[in-house]
């Protein structure tokens, strides 16, 4: 008993020691495994994990540049950046979007339009981009949200610079506007240059000079925590702001021109013939470009889009109209230069013209006819029959060959996006586009600026400037200099001379311009009402048919709908012998050029020559 207990005790003790020893191995072996594993992580793969750790905490953030400003020729600001507060939601960070918006509504008024815009922007943008639900918050609204901010994760007040166009509709068609970058644009722009920038030029100068205005993005390295909150800035490269643009446009002149239209729609372009500077470029009606900056509401957009006045349509550079009688000085000059006519040669105008062996009567605007007229009379009284005959003798090939160097039928190359080129009809053009031969009758109506012939107001103004400067051609320009801030050296934009119109005789030009002077000064001049004592105006009226009057039918202004009325045109330059301004005006459905379009041109020239700082 005694012995066996002792034996048991010793045996169990030995057994336990053996097991304890095994236990030591059981402990040490896994610990060694652990140590090896940790050595693998901390020594061998250290660099890899250091990189991962750095990627975790260091984020690169773009610092968007400030967009360049736009000034008129006298330093009046046309496009600026205003600090505003907007309420923005990052959809990715909001759990229940609907509920969040409902709660926000209790705090800050959010209209249905705001909501619609939000939803539209949301479908176009990345989930981690913040999207404005309300813009231009008042101070009180900012304060009210700030107090309740903790209740709205993923909703932030963003203080930022928003593009603003103080002259609104007056400069809308020149400047265009910026808007939020859409998916299509994302594919064409350099994404890194636009990281942090939400807006891009959509139209007009804002689009044409996008690269200049945008500037260069800066970068900063920041340390963020797991929630993405910035803890501190590690390193930063500041952005370089966009360049400022100084325009050739006179904002006051622009407004004067706009107002001169009164209730009418149309376009007016004024150019300095000496250097091609665009002094005014009006398309009426305008629109408020500020609506587009933070995303226009569907309702506003539809209103603009469906309006019969087409406010979004830039008539000055995209509107294509028949030039009507404004083309007569150019064709008349062509007749003289080619040598078919001499200025004194008279023709009899019975009120209509007939091609040999044709019964169709091409009518003059004056029913009884002008009687015997020479070149000057034909321009002053705008005799159609004289020009039917001239066109008939020149033929379409010579007409288009002579008009093309004035810039008809091609873009002027102005530095605004979206310009169209008009149409100068030729025999080849008609065969290619319509697969039809050229008919002789079409030559006649081309001679009075009807038929296929189309011009843009800008084109017409540019051609008028060429006429004014006796054949010199300069590409119209709207930006005169580019400058970094207000202190930087101004980079003047080049004045680009184009190949001049070939001149046979100075006398031919003088007699045409003499006739155009008589248009405003002569007793029978179609624009004699704008005659004035301060400066002399050379001009030409025009009327472009919107629809064709049937044979033997009377055109009665009173009876037809305003929309079907003729467009009124007027071209002019002044002072006639030393021109500083050339103008083209088109008043849609205005009726007669002399009574409607000429006074608008006069208002522009008055302001520029008499009131504006030179």
């Amino acid at each position, binding site marked *: 008993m005694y012995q066996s207990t002792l034996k048991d005790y010793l045996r169990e003790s030995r057994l336990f020691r053996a097991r304890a020893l095994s236990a030591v191995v059981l402990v040490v072996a896994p610990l060694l495994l652990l140590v090896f594993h940790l050595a693998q992580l*901390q020594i061998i793969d250290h660099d890899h*994990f250091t990189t991962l750790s750095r990627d975790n905490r260091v984020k690169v953030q773009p610092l968007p540049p400030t967009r360049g400003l736009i000034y008129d020729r006298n330093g009046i600001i046309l496009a600026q950046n205003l600090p505003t507060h907007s309420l923005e939601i990052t959809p990715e960070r909001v759990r229940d979007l609907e509920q969040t918006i409902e709660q926000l509504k209790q705090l800050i008024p959010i209209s249905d339009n705001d909501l619609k815009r939000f939803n539209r922007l949301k479908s176009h943008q990345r989930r981690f981009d913040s999207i404005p639900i309300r813009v231009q918050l008042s101070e009180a609204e900012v304060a009210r949200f700030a107090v309740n901010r903790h209740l709205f994760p993923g909703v932030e007040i963003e203080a930022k610079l928003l593009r603003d166009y103080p002259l609104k509709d007056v400069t809308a068609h020149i400047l265009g506007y910026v808007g939020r970058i859409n998916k299509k644009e994302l594919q064409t722009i350099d994404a890194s240059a636009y990281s942090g920038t939400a807006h891009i030029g959509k139209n007009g100068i804002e689009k044409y000079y996008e690269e200049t205005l945008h500037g260069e993005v800066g970068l900063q390295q920041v340390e963020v925590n797991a929630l993405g909150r910035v803890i501190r800035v590690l390193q930063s490269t500041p952005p370089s702001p966009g360049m400022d643009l100084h325009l050739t446009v006179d904002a006051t002149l622009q407004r004067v021109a706009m107002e001169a239209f009164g209730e009418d729609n149309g376009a007016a372009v004024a150019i300095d013939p000496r250097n091609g500077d665009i002094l005014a470029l009006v398309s009426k009606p305008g629109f408020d470009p500020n609506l587009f900056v933070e995303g226009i509401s569907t309702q506003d957009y539809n209103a603009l889009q469906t309006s019969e006045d087409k406010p979004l349509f830039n008539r000055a550079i995209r509107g294509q109209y028949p030039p009507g009688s404004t083309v007569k000085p150019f064709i008349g000059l062509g007749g003289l230069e080619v040598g078919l006519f001499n200025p004194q040669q008279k023709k009899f105008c019975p009120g209509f013209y007939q091609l040999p062996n044709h019964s169709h009567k091409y009518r003059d605007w004056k029913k009884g006819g002008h009687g015997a007229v020479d070149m000057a009379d034909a321009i002053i009284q705008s005799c159609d029959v004289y020009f039917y005959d001239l066109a008939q003798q020149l033929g379409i090939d010579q007409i288009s060959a002579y008009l093309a160097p004035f810039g008809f039928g091609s873009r002027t190359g102005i530095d605004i996006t979206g310009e169209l080129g008009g149409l100068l009809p030729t025999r080849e053009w008609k065969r290619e586009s319509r697969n039809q031969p050229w008919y002789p009758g079409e030559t006649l109506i081309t001679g009075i600026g009807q038929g296929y012939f189309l011009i843009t107001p800008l084109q017409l103004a540019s051609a008028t400037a060429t006429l004014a400067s006796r054949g010199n051609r300069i590409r119209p320009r709207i930006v005169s200099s580019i400058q970094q801030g207000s202190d930087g050296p101004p980079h003047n934009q080049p004045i680009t001379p184009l190949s001049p119109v070939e001149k046979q005789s100075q006398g031919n030009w003088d007699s045409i311009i003499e006739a155009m002077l008589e248009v405003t000064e002569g007793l029978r001049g179609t624009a004699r009402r704008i005659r004035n004592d301060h400066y002399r105006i050379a001009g030409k009226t025009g009327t472009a048919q919107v629809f064709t009057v049937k044979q033997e039918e009377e055109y009665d202004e009173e009876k037809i709908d305003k929309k079907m009325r003729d467009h009124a045109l007027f071209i002019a330059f002044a002072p006639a012998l030393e021109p500083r301004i050339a103008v083209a005006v088109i008043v849609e459905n205005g009726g007669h050029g002399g009574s409607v379009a000429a006074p608008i041109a006069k208002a522009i020239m008055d302001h520029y020559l008499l009131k504006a700082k030179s």
Partner: protein
Amino acid sequence: MAHYQPSGLPESNPTKAEGLLADLHLDLPLLTGLLLLCGFGLVILYSASGQDMAVMERQAIRLAVAFVVMIAVAQVPPTTLRRWAPWLFAAGILMLVAVLVAGQVGKGAQRWLNLGLFRFQPSELVKLAVPMMIAWFLAEKSLPPRWNRLLIAGIMILVPVLLIAKQPDLGTSLLVASAGIFVLFLAGLSWRFIGGMLITAIPVALALWEWGMRDYQRNRVLTFLNPERDPLGTGYHIIQSKIAIGSGGLYGKGWLNGTQSYLDFLPEGTTDFIFAVLAEEFGFTGILMLLAIYLFIILRGLYIASQAQDTFSRLLGGAVTLVFFVYLFVNTGMVSGILPVVGVPLPLVSYGGTSLVTIMAGFGILMSIHTHRKLLPT
């Protein structure tokens, strides 16, 4: 029964401090190791909590309570513990059943029993009651145990383990199971049997996978096998933890300079993942220091167990020590990505109180075993 009289022992001349330790039934080397560990733990916690003094204060209080419990347990002689074993075990089982019936739900699992004044987690008691019970049961007969007794012991382990797993609390049931199995192992479970069990474990594991696991548990295993499977969900913890450890390098980023923990990339930095904070800030050298302290404590525990004079004390002491190791290895293995994500704290370092008290009570048992020895001839 025979009793041996102490004779011919060299009389030591204890210093005052040693005298006090002896009076309190404390073991100096073990106490030193534990104090070092807790001190190191507080240093890391200070950084991991973002230098939160409130957290430090709460943890200090918990540590103090745990040390008091340890000292209290150390006063109880092993013979008394042995007498209590069946009763504690029975009480533990009853409370586990009560938890399942009327327990409180926290973090998606029923673990707590509301006793009016405070909430109590019975599984913590069971962590000690199971090895005590098995040690008590096996010490009745001579070792190594026979097959029939092994079977009974196995059932004694399985019942509480299943009850805890049902809460569900995978981590604790694993610890309880290991406590019981360690007793069997130390009692001389034959190597052949161990080998046999390991071989049968494979089909059992497959069966468990198919029918016995909940989705989140399966997810944990899958995520463990390939953390990148779900980098934003379950795998995120492991990925971030490995980044913290790996970027720590040989010497670490420096105390209070761990970017992973300070910028909140590391989840649960003060509790289950505090080891990653240490690894990030103190590097490989810091880890070796910590593991050295742990190893010292474990070896001292095994030494105490092997010096114990009765089978019950040996088995219990050894098992308590090995469970402490399981804590350490499961936690560090999880944090460094070689074991599945199982919610086990880093013992005596992680912030939090429940397991702290149990662990220190276990060390109280070890101290009791060592200081209540009767002197025997060698």
